[in-house]
């Protein structure tokens, strides 16, 4: 296995394990403003990815990302399946079309974020996972090539997730609660933050 494939495999493993470990927290956040299934759904999806990790990491990077996306779509069972699934499918698709890592990271991430936005017919400011992903994208653009990029991405994600607490949900199940959604961190924003932090930690560990 190549160095890149090894790095990718351990990165996916760390990210999936972190989401699985945070499942109880995601569920309790979702019980406050959603239908309480975000933790178990994400756990099921990540376990399915871990189960296929050998065949996923044997693929070229673009196909590997698409396999992750498809696995999440087919196994998560909630709206987060198509949302995260579209993220990884679009990232893989971007890499299949003349984009390369690490130099095009912001472009590839941008395609993935756009896919989430289109799938959810949502944009930043509506108390969703986009409220973490969009600020992270901005940091990837503005801090591209900087030595402290990873550190800045981590800080962005942590701050962004806390900023969802005072937001009023207008998308998804939380929107049924109207003003009662205010004061709770969004579970999708939290799972996005967990993923971003896990990827950053894995990259830092590999340096």
């Amino acid at each position: 296995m190549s160095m890149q494939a090894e790095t990718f495999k351990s990165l996916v493993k760390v990210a999936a394990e972190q989401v699985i470990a945070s499942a109880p927290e995601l569920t309790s956040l979702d019980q406050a403003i959603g239908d309480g299934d975000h933790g178990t759904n994400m756990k099921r999806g990540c376990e399915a990815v871990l189960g296929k990790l050998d065949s996923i990491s044997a693929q070229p990077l673009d196909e590997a990302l698409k396999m992750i996306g498809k696995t999440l779509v087919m196994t998560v069972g909630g709206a987060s399946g198509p949302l995260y699934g579209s993220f990884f499918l679009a990232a893989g698709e971007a890499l299949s079309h003349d984009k390369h890592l690490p130099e095009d990271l912001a472009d590839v991430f941008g395609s993935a974020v756009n896919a989430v936005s289109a799938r959810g017919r949502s944009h930043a400011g509506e108390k969703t996972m986009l409220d973490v992903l969009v600020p992270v994208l901005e940091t990837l653009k503005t801090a591209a090539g900087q030595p402290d990029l990873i550190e800045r991405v981590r800080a962005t994600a942590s701050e962004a997730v806390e900023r969802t607490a005072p937001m009023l949900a207008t998308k998804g199940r939380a929107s049924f609660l109207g003003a009662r959604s205010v004061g709770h961190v969004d579970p999708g924003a939290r799972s996005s933050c967990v993923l971003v932090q896990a990827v950053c930690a894995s990259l830092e560990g590999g340096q």
Partner: protein
Amino acid sequence: MSETVGIVIVSHSLDIAKGTADMVRQMVGSEVRVAFCGGNPDGGLGTSVPSIIDAINDAWSAKGVAILVDLGGAETNSEMAVEMLEPARRDHVVVCNAPIVEGAVMAATEAAGGSTLAQVKAVAEELSAD
């Protein structure tokens, strides 16, 4: 009798999906193909893309398929399932913005009369109009 638009019912609960399909069959009869699914891949409350794809293929008709859903994730997963169909079928499946029980009965009633997919969708969605 020419083919009629097929109906797919997607609920978070298999019981609701089945109950809705039972109501459609009793009120509209069996000339319209009705398929249903409910529950996440583990059988708990939720929806499952592979089950939705199977239901669409079960209800398949050359005139197309109209899907009725309950809550958010059922809609998102249904849209994803439609995109994952074989290309020839993708453009002949719609997700209706309508209440699941009333929408399914109205859609099936309209379908039974031989209406097009666009007509079936429009009739179901009249229920959501103010």
